[in-house]
């Protein structure tokens, strides 16, 4: 009898326990439910960080375990955010428009309400008609489904095209980067149907919810923690079984796996689509906390940062991706948010806002050169110490 996949890998349990303890601690310290040490904006930052950890797990699955360096996973992340953002924006505007029209002498017709919502949402891009892609925007269930379906289908089609023609290695990386660039450029247009470079905004307000932001932020924090935990479990399960072995085989020697009779393209395609969907879920939870999504979010650079997080955290181990994403994104926020004190050298004042990117870039080179296992590698050192 084989042990369950959790039994095989005790790090999963440790991770989940740490996550639970972290969530509990934050809840106790937060403004919404606890003693109020942590501000609402910091809770949002933490919640967003958990979402970034989740997308980093997706990236680790596809890159660390399957060897496909995708530079386009933030496109799926952003699409997930757009899909949920459409419902949030539509539902909230609907309430506002209905309240406004109810002030009139005569009750509004259904068409008037829809026209009102249309001109409210699309006024900034000089239009008032709903594009076709908003057809399901009034239904939360359908839009939630689209969070999975749209990125999933995009990943499926793109992956099928790419893997079928045996595009691999750096070529695939460049191709995925081109995909996310194309998507970002497309969304930047005003007539893309998603408000051009204005993006979707006001997403932090849940329609019909009167609870203050301090409470809503906690809900999202818990949802993000839950999603991260679930995503971690699913990913751990996926890589533990036979499927995981084939995936790792593809990473180590694709040709050999193919000669053993495995349909390599199908395996890659399944994993690519699965990770795209995980990224989309992370995005759908991230953007309501960020409050706004615009095409700049899915520019190629974002996806490259994702690879940076996973590399620094240590690819090929799930907790490494989580650590890398959490560490780098939090430190980035700290440095670029202007909270880090400037260093006055007398002849020159080092402003961290200006120099953080330089440090990040150089440290990235150093990690690649000297610590390919990233932060996760430290745990190996600890293990070796305790063993000897």
């Amino acid at each position, binding site marked *: 009898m084989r042990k369950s996949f959790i039994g095989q890998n005790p790090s999963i349990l440790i991770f989940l326990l740490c996550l639970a303890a972290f969530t509990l601690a934050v809840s106790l310290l937060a403004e919404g439910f606890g003693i109020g040490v942590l501000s609402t904006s910091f809770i949002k930052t933490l919640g967003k960080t958990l979402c970034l950890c989740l997308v980093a797990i997706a990236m680790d699955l596809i890159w660390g375990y399957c060897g496909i360096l995708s530079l386009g996973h933030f496109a799926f992340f952003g699409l997930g955010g757009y899909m949920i953002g459409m419902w949030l924006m539509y539902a909230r505007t609907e309430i506002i428009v209905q309240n406004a029209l109810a002030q009139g002498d*005569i009750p509004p017709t259904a068409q008037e309400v829809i026209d009102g919502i249309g001109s409210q949402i699309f006024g900034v891009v000089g239009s008032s008609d709903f594009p076709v892609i908003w057809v399901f925007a009034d239904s939360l269930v359908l839009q939630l489904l689209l969070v999975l379906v749209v990125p999933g289908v995009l990943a499926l089609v793109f992956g099928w095209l*790419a893997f079928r*023609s045996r595009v691999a290695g750096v070529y695939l990386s460049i191709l995925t980067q*081109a995909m996310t660039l194309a*998507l970002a450029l497309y969304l*930047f247009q005003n007539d893309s149907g998603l408000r051009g470079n204005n993006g979707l905004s006001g997403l932090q307000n849940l329609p019909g919810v009167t609870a203050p932001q301090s409470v809503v932020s906690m809900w999202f924090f818990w949802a993000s923690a839950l999603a991260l935990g679930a995503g971690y479990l699913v990913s751990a399960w996926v890589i533990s079984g036979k499927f995981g072995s084939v995936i790792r085989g593809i990473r180590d020697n694709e040709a050999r796996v193919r000669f053993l009779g495995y349909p390599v393209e199908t395996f890659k395609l399944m994993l690519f689509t699965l990770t795209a969907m995980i990224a989309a879920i992370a995005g759908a939870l991230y953007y309501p906390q960020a409050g706004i999504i615009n095409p700049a979010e899915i520019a*190629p650079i974002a996806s490259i940062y994702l690879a940076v997080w996973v590399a620094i955290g240590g690819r090929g181990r799930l907790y490494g991706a989580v650590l890398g994403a959490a560490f780098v994104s939090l430190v980035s926020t700290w440095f670029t948010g202007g909270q880090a004190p400037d260093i006055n050298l007398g002849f020159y004042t080092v402003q961290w806002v200006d120099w953080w990117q*330089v440090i990040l*870039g150089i440290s990235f080179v150093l990690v690649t050169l000297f610590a390919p296992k990233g932060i996760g590698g430290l745990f190996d050192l600890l293990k070796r110490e305790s063993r000897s």
Partner: protein
Amino acid sequence: MSKFLHACRILICGVFVLLAQAALAQDDTAPDPQPGQLGPLQTVLQQDAALIAKASRTTIGPIIDAIVASELPSVPHFLSAWQNKDVWQRAEDGLFFVATKADGKTYRLLDLDTGTEVGTAAKDELDQLKPNSGVRGLIATALVQFQLSDPNRDTRVEALVAIERRPGPDLLTPLRASIPAEPDAELKARKTRIERLLTMAYDADPAARIDAIEAMSTDLGVDVRAALNPLVATQRQVAQTLPEDINLARELTPGSEDLSRDAAYVMLVDAGLAPPHQSAAELKSQLSQHIDAGRVGGVPVAQLSNPEARVTAYAALAAAGVVPQLVTEADVDAALASHVFFESYAEKDPAVTAAANAALATIATRVGVNQALDLGLDAISLASIYFLAAIGLAITFGLMGVINMAHGEFIMMGAYTGYVVQQVIPNHTVSILVAIPLAFAVTFAAGVAMERLVIRHLYHRPLETLLATFGISIALQQLAKNIFGTQARPLTSPGWLDGALVMNDVLAISYIRIAIFVLALIFLGLFLFLMKRTRLGLETRAVTQNPRMAASMGINPGRVNMLTFGLGSGIAGIAGVAIGLYAKVTSELGADYIVQSFMTVVVGGVGNIWGALLGATMIGSLQKGIEWLNPSNTLAAQTYMIIFIIIFIQFRPRGIIALKGRAAGD
């Protein structure tokens, strides 16, 4: 201010005096000026002295014609003086003089016919003639015929410019008259051309107009189209039956693509042929004005969220006579069916409009051909920019297989080098000549340093090379931002590269694009020479194909790799100078080109310079082609291009020129 008021006062007084004088003159009781003493022009003027002094656009025309018809040699001088408000009338006898200010308040009076000084007068004894702009326009038209045959060439050019600016039917005859005697060949051609354009529009004889139109139908000039377009200008009209006396362009069917149903009905309403159609919003506001005890027309207000209930309520109101009858869709259809909608030409002669339409069609075809050529030139110049950006990459990525994400930043470094050199050396030509080798040196050094410090350790790990060079890329970008700031820096091209090579009104190419094209060709040649004819090229090819074998033949692969990488980076630096000349230099300059550069190399085929050339050509012409199909949207063009490339790679995964056999590597 007070001076101005004073002048006004004088003017008003003057007008009164003039009126009085005119009245006197017509009474024949005033002492007539002695005709024997007056010059011939003065005599002509005195016949209409009152109307000249108080000229208005509506009355002055025949008088100017009479003055011109006198054919006196002094007429042009008088007209231009009149136009410039230099003609004054002496109050005491009503004679006209050209007056110039002598000193203070006295003016020297010059005789109109002889131009000699005949005396002086104080300002308050004189009245200035101040023709308004309408009169001045008429004077200018009359003057043109004199200016057209003026001995001074500049005056003739000015007259032609005036005609071009405000063409008119009365200019045609003087222009024609001046052509045979025109000594300057260039001006003669120009006069003939303007004469043809005026003939098209204004000649009395339709056959002459049609001849002119047909003769000009092969000309691409904007002026020809500008002269032809008014001839075929149409006006949309609606009537109950089609009028007979119009030059019909076409009939329109309401509800068709050219005339929507709503627009047609609006035309009817505007023409007063149908009652206005109530919009949903008007319906609603009418209803809300007639709410009576929670009901409108007997319908409870709460039910009015239903559009049909609204119509019912409105119909009830209309039946009660408080609002106009509702215009139903059936009413609209009936009204539309009982009228004809048509477009008619403002030009009455059908033969002329037909000829003009035919000429415009011919011109449109020729313009289309030239635009296609122009597009082709655009595509070539864009392709040469992509090729320049990608050629360094073709060496580092194509030959060595090193993914250098910092390649774009090398381009940026080259551009900034050019900028810094221009700060030191102000002469643009010299600074560019210095900047090119310097940019090569700077980026060569940077490339060698990068190869020695980072890439050397990562051969055979391409994905990690990608990530490490990406780290260098963001660090370099931020460094550039810290040093040069975020605003764009100019890299000015030398004066002799300004301007454009103009073929005709449609086809033009700027010299800077030609220079970039030439530069791209030079680099192609340089690359081929280096790779095929030099020791370094031989060694590079050997190391690329089989490093171990090359090493055992006595080649030092490390050194060759270092030099090759430096060479690729150096070329990127020179490309940076070229790109900086026509785009602004920012820290993101390189990032803008990096994806396209990789696309160029991948599409063309890795490891082959001809592939990069083909790839650049394909991507450049593709982008221009899509932009042409969808001109308003360059973002969409880039999107579709990338999608096209993704699909293209499906069919030729190894690019246009794929290496075969062992050289293909894996």
